[in-house]
């Protein structure tokens, strides 16, 4: 009965959506706004990667919100899973083998480095702060899996988180005071297109985001791992 009702309801919704989709042809070029971005993105923001110019330039405010969402999630997770004590309890789990242990420790800096590369080059190549941050977090995850007992130092991670977020906001506010009186306006020189040091504030923000996302995701993983012990 329940399934039938669900299917019926979903079918009605699907029908409605299908009727709407006839107005949204697949694979056809359309929005003049998108065209505007593609054509002017490089000049406006100094980023070769138009997605980056959208993410941090045209729709930078979304990204600020996005960072906030992630921050909320990390904090909320912490609040829900707050255990009070941070001392990991001794458990009877078998320690990792030497190969695994060494391998993980060997891979850790490489992965972090790769992550850093991704977010530093966010305005030039596919990728950016979130992607880079996720990769950095994966390094921590690897450590948790391979080298049990190693933990992120909470004070450091929260300091990084905090500083990353602050940097973003302060850069935005600096735009408000420095140039054009717009929040998040590109007040630094755009530099030469396609160079590493170009794109004004975009790389700075991406670095901040990358670090922040990395430490936040690592923190989330840390919490969940701790919970599972």
């Amino acid at each position: 009965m329940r399934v039938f009702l669900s299917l019926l309801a979903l079918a009605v919704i699907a029908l409605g959506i299908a009727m709407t989709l006839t107005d949204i042809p697949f694979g056809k070029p359309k929005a003049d706004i998108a065209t505007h971005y593609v054509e002017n993105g490089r000049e406006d923001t100094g980023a070769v990667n138009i997605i980056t110019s959208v993410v941090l330039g045209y729709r930078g405010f979304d990204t600020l919100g996005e960072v906030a969402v992630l921050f909320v999630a990390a904090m909320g997770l912490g609040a829900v899973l707050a255990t009070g004590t941070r001392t990991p309890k001794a458990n009877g789990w078998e320690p990792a083998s030497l190969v695994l242990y060494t391998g993980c420790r060997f891979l850790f800096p490489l992965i972090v480095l790769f992550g850093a590369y991704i977010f530093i080059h966010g305005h030039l190549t596919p990728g950016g702060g979130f992607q880079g941050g996720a990769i950095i977090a994966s390094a921590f995850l690897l450590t948790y899996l391979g080298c049990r007992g190693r933990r992120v130092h909470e004070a450091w991670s929260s300091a990084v988180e905090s500083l990353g977020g602050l940097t973003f906001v302060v850069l935005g506010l600096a735009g408000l005071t420095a140039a054009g009186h717009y929040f998040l306006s590109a007040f630094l020189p755009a530099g030469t297109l396609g160079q590493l040091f170009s794109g004004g504030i975009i790389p700075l923000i991406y670095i901040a985001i990358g670090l922040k996302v990395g430490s936040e995701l690592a923190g989330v993983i840390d919490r969940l791992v701790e919970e599972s012990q």
Partner: protein
Amino acid sequence: MVSPVLLIAVPLGLAFAMPLIALISRRLPRFVPLVACAFNLIVAIRLIPTVLSAPVIQRIGGFSPPFCINLFAGPVGVMFAGLIALAGLVIAIYALSYIRTGPTVRYHMLYMLLLVGATGVVLTGDVFNLFVFFEVLCISSYALVAYFGDRNGLEAAAKYLIQGAVGSALLLMGIGLLYGLFGTLNMADIASRIGSVSDISVFVPLALIVSGLGVEAAIFPLNAWLPDAHSSAPSSISAILSGIAIEVGLYAVVRMIFTVFGATSIFMFLLFLGVLTVLMGELCAFAQTNIKRMLAYSSIGQIGLIVFAFAMASTISLAGGLFQLLTHTLSKALLFLAAGYMIHRSGSMEISSLNGMGRRMPLTSLAFSFGAFSIVGLPPFIGFPSKFLIVRSALEKQQTLFTLLLGFVLLGTLVEGAYFFRVVQAIYFKKSGDEPASRSLAPALPLISMLILAVLIIFVGIYPQPVADALSTAASDLLDRAAYIGSVLR
């Protein structure tokens, strides 16, 4: 001129900075929300005279709309932001001493982010940005509902999260369809193009968005999370959820329907929905024995009343609806705060456990009565002018249907009066059980916050004129689509 973006950026920056502040001293972070809210309140008050004459369009990143995200600081938005800051400030003062256990630093961070999300939703002029801030609001409230980590809190949070997530997904689908249809996300831009596609194609995103936002706005039948979440959260969070979160959801619905879609034909449906919500909420509240659950259901009723007012879509009714929103924010916050300390004192949420509270906690009880009277709409409290405006707008329609629906709404008010007066009586006149009737005041800080709310409730109740004037400007801002489009896409 101050920039409206400060309303979002500064509290957000402070929230980001809180881990650092916590490293310096663990006692400091609890004062950060106070600072942020006070700042926001000042900014909002300074902005109000400006925006009453013309809305301020803040372009983020310096591009011209529709190519960038813009903040639309119209009268409604700024007043909402001010209200959020005000409620946030008062409840933050309350929480200073109410929140003593658990990860308090995280509590204050999440609390601030909740306010940031709410402020973002009311100020933004971009559909997707609205979604983002909406999620900030939602996720922080999921976490805060579960803050105490007890059975009820967790259960409520889980249910809230599931329903909220479905709502968000629907909202995002709606936004995706909108983008597909119009190739833009700017509200004004969408509004200007809305006539270019067929009705059904516009309707499906509208339905998706209304359902998605309606979950947070607690419109019947999408409100099943509300009684659970509001009754199980810490009282300060119940207050902010009831006073701010659902109102913001409602604002989003209204902004979408009025400005973006200009869907005048759906008003009749909303009208019935509002009346239904009123009746459902009040009836359920009437049957409650748990004080916080009762207050939560009463919030549903109030939301129904506001929806009813909005759906009549005249300047007066919108002003009335906004006024009622203000009423509900202040009164319900006061009620939850007062109830919070009474529950704290008696150790139970049953209404019967509040017997004789009038003697044990005189000031808190007084505050509760003020809130109750105000919600019911008795003069000289703030609830009266708002109810007056709503009744007036319904009767000015001069149609039997509206008068009839008004009758149902007032029936709801009657039921509401019945259960609120029952509680007030229990507080003042019933003998408490075995506990000796020792007098004890709540700590000073919660009392201060309740006092602020009570004074506001009475003051605006006696002298509503400036508020009503400002709100009717706000109402015309909501109603006037062309002006909205024009001022953004100038």
